[in-house]
């Protein structure tokens, strides 16, 4: 789950990272009263779950209350890469003498949390990684000991070789960020930039955190951080029904058992010139209720002109799956054609059951995909 800058900053603040104050406003009036509380100058920052907010005009420096009002009014409701701005963060502006990047993520190769830091702060780190990878320093963190003092200080000195006081502030920020990362079950945590004022005081002025969906069970309070406005309504319904679903732009709805097979099915639809409408992993269950939920989500999309079930029956028996699909489709009013591919355990029995229905049975993935594309028109 991705969370907003202001929410990430709340987590950072609770771990003692130096974050300038700030609160969110949903109207220009609120923005002005917050600016009055903090004193000028302030920053008005759109809160949307995407990068490149500054370039898109969603972040403004304001020296007067008129600026605050105008900018807040402009930014609220703005569309930034398909995300509508519903909230702006009002935060005191600080003078910037230098900018750094500090980030942590899960590194699949070392199987550890990896600290990455660079003196090239305030720009897109993906670009730095591409153009000048030698300017990004990396330190895998041993989970037994955490980020040790000397490791953090070494990184601090690499970033700030001429100023030990600043290096110490960077090192302390890295250690706090690691504690926050682990405690929050993050999959990504970034401060970009971590800045120093001309007086040498460090601040984390931007924050990005992605949380591990698998760990939500031990952070019930984080459920409140979810931005329901930013979530596609069909993706929300799917999440609430415990289905793994991603909406796409096509017209062939896909219901598949297993994530890998679901991806391969989408790919095959595209291979034959069709457009998949979604990714959906229905799991190993043949439970009619689950099939009904999945079909409701897919059929809510009016672009969907055909539905394709791709089921490989391994442990799940195909006749059970067929029974589930027949029960589910009978209970619903469905106007689009449905193709059902069943292969594996008891596949013939399953397909025989489909023969007496309006459902189109198929044996192979190829046959099913081609049929679904044809029926979608």
């Amino acid at each position, binding site marked *: 789950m991705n969370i907003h800058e202001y929410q990430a900053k709340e987590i950072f603040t609770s771990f003692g990272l130096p974050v300038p104050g700030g609160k969110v406003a949903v109207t220009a009036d609120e923005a002005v009263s917050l600016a009055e509380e903090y004193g000028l100058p302030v920053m008005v920052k759109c809160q949307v779950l995407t990068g490149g907010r500054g370039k898109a005009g969603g972040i403004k420096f304001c020296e007067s209350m008129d600026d605050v009002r105008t900018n807040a009014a402009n930014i609220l409701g703005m569309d930034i890469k398909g995300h509508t701005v519903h909230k702006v963060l009002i935060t005191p502006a600080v003078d910037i003498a230098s900018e750094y990047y500090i980030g942590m993520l899960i590194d699949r190769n070392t199987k550890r949390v990896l600290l990455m830091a660079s003196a090239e702060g305030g720009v897109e780190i993906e670009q730095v990684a591409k153009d000048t990878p030698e300017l990004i320093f990396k330190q895998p963190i041993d989970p037994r000991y955490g980020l040790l003092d000397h490791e953090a200080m070494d990184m601090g000195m690499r970033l700030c070789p001429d100023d030990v006081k600043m290096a110490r502030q960077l090192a302390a920020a890295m250690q706090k960020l690691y504690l926050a990362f682990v405690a929050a079950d993050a999959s990504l945590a970034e401060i970009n930039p971590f800045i120093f004022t001309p007086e040498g005081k460090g601040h984390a002025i931007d924050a990005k955190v992605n949380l591990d969906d698998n760990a939500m*069970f031990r952070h019930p309070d984080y459920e409140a951080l979810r931005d329901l406005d930013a979530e596609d309504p069909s993706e929300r319904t799917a999440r609430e029904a415990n289905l793994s679903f991603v909406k796409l732009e096509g017209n062939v709805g896909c219901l598949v058992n297993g*994530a*890998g097979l679901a991806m*391969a099915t989408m*790919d095959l639809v595209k291979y034959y010139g069709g457009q998949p409408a979604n990714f959906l992993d229905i799991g190993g269950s043949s439970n009619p209720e689950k099939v009904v939920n999945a079909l409701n989500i897919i059929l809510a999309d009016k672009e969907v002109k055909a539905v394709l079930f791709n089921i490989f029956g*391994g*442990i799940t028996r195909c006749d059970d799956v067929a029974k589930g699909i027949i029960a589910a489709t009978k209970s619903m009013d469905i106007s689009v054609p449905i193709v059902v591919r069943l292969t*594996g355990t008891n596949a013939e029995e399953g397909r025989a059951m489909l023969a007496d229905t309006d459902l189109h049975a198929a044996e192979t993935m190829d046959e099913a995909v081609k049929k679904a594309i044809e029926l979608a028109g």
Partner: protein
Amino acid sequence: MAIFVDDSTKVVVQGITGRDGGFHSKEMLAYGTKIVAGVTPGRGGQTFDDKVPVYNTVKEAVDQHGVNTSVIFVPPFGAAGAIYEAADAGCELIICITEGVPTVDMVKVMPYLEERSVRLIGPNCPGLLAPGIAKLGILPASIVKEGPVGLVSRSGTLTYEVVYQLTAAGLGQTTCLGIGGDPVIGTTFMDAIVAFNEDPKTEAFVMIGEIGGDAEEKAAEYIKANVKKPVVSFIAGQTAPPGKRMGHAGAIVSGGSGTAADKRKALEAAGIPVADRPMDIVPKLQEIWKR
């Protein structure tokens, strides 16, 4: 012969009295896997399916039966704990089927396993099936056949799809291995490929990759430098939009890396044919494999 298992494999199932653990334990027993004990805390003294003794701890199972392998069907909040317990009790191979284990838990588990030289497969995986030797996990026994092909995959049902096609074409398998779709896993693509390369019974192998990370790219480099056996590949997720998790926690294209196109390029540059469709995998293998 197979990779990671042999005739000495003696198994304990952690979570044997649960719904999934119980169902799959019966399937494994039916295949002839030597499940000699089960563990569910609080159920010690009971018997599973009238033949397998249940203990409260893995330690008891190891002391009583000399088990060396654990298969874990414990819910996500207890999965890491179950892995520590199995490793501490002396299991040398642990297969964690559980889906939804927090990644930070797995990061913490890893050094503990390294210190004890324990091999972990998974989590969030279908496990391993070595036809004629053992079934450790949830891969369906009905689709496999003994033979000379190795198969490693990050997926579940897509693996079954490919195994099914191999078997239908008369190509049996030494070992079918699902390593799991999470970002941090025990046995990696690379580990499996090294093992298949060294296994004398494995004459050729198939790797089924998917978007996210760079395990396929790393495997490609290794294969180019070290592997003479025929290898073919398939990568799922060519149409996956960036930034979206495609079911598996590890299946995500982030910051422009981990795309199917990059992986395909790396594999092809290493001389490994990449199938366009799952059904092209077997013909591609037959094309390059002069038996």
